Structure formats: structure tokens, C-alpha cells
């Protein structure tokens, strides 16, 4: 494996880990209630 292929691989890995981390954080059942709240609130701003 040459150095640029290694670099591409590590970069992809890093991005995947960050992406996975964000998904894990927001999909944690503990936070569901709070994260999903605005979608209900936005429905009742009308007169």
C-alpha cells in the first residue's frame, strides 16, 4: 500500500468514526424525547 492510499484510508476511517459517533449520540434512546420535541412544537404555532 502506498502512502497516498494509506492517507485516503485513514481519512475515510476518521470521517466514518465521526459520522458513527454523531449517529450514536443522536440515536441514544435517552435523548429521544428531547431531540424529537421541536417537531411537535412547530405544529402548534398557529392561531
Amino acid at each position, binding site marked *: 500500500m502506498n502512502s497516498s492510499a494509506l492517507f485516503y484510508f485513514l481519512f475515510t476511517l476518521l470521517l466514518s468514526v465521526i459520522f458513527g459517533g454523531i449517529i450514536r449520540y443522536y440515536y441514544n434512546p435517552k*435523548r429521544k424525547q*428531547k*431531540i424529537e420535541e*421541536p417537531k411537535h412544537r412547530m405544529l402548534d404555532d398557529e392561531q
Partner: protein
Amino acid sequence: MGITSKPVVFAVLSAAVILIGSTVTVFIPLFMPSTQPVSAYVKPYTSVELEGRDIYMREGCNNCHTQTVRPLRTEVLRYGEYSKPEEFAYDRPFLWGSRRTGPDLNRIGGKYPDSWHYRHMQSPQSMFEKSNMPPYGWLAKNRLDTSNSYKKTSILGYGFSEQDVQVQISQYRSKVTADTYLSKETRDLVTPAELHHELTEMDAIIAYLQKLGRDVKNLETKK
């Protein structure tokens, strides 16, 4: 909860996220000489060619004609040698285009004599009945405005003195208005009599078209 209740933080974070890809793929390459290499064989446009290029831009020729031959077999067969990065070192802006309603022009220089272009610009349909190119005969009725030519080349850093620019303009005028000019007959046909001894916009755009790809062709013939 988190950043969705902090608009300023949210905005800063958005900007940061947006700037990462921009920096890596666009801003950093700006400072890498390998993105746009410069080669001695590629010469900047003369003032007349540059004025022609500005007319090409003004008329939006780039909306139908590309100026990049891709390294594909049939494309090289159709247009000629594929485009090299160094050819574009003096192109501000680049005119690669995105759509080929008409053929690619990156190798048009020297392909046809000037007379072909005068006739074709005057009336594309007279040469190709089914062509959908707009006629540009009116360019021959406009005297070429060279009042900003020096300013233009100096902004672009072509390194011409004011005198160089004057010489380029008068030389090209002498060339196309001379009795010995090979395309004289066609030029006189499309140009109004009062402009026979002046440079027109048509002269300039043809000068520009004849420059496209010439440096590459010259290099090849030298080899």
C-alpha cells in the same frame, strides 16, 4: 438542548463544517503550483487576441462551445490532442464550458483559414445549412475598441508595455488590411467599406480563435 438552541454557535459551526471541504479541495490547491502549471511554450494572448476573447465572452460563446478536449479516444480523433493544464495559465477566466451544442474549440486555431471564419461567422447556415449557430455578421460592423487594451493586459500581468500593445494592435491591423492578406476577399465582403482599413470586432474574435491550441500545435511540429 445543545447547539440547536444556540443560533450563533450553530452558525459558526456550520461555517466551519462548510469550510473544511472548501479548504482542502479549493483553497489549498490555489497555492499549489501543480494545480495550474506554467510552461514557457504557452504564450499569453496578444492584445488583439485578448480583445477577441472578451468578445467571445461577451457573446456567451462558452454557453455552446467547450474548450477542453478530454483524453478519450474518439474525442482526440475528432478534435485533436487532449488539453493540457499548462495551456490555461493565462486564461482568466477559464472558458472550458459545460455543454457542447457546438463543437469543442480548444484546437480550432489553424484548423481553417481566416476566410473560413469570416464566412462562417457572417452566416453559419450558408456553410452548414442545418447549423443552429446564431449569425455574427454584425461583429464586422463594429470597430474594435482598443481604448482599454493596455489596462487589460497589465491587469492580467502579461508583461506588455504600452508600446508593445500599440505595436500588436497596429501590426494586426496592417496584416488584415493589407492587399496581400490571404483572406482579404472574404474579409472585404463581410466588412462595411468604411471599416476596411480598421480593426473590427470580427477581426479580433477570429484572431482569438486562431490562437486556440496553436502553442500545442507549434510544439508538436517542432518535435
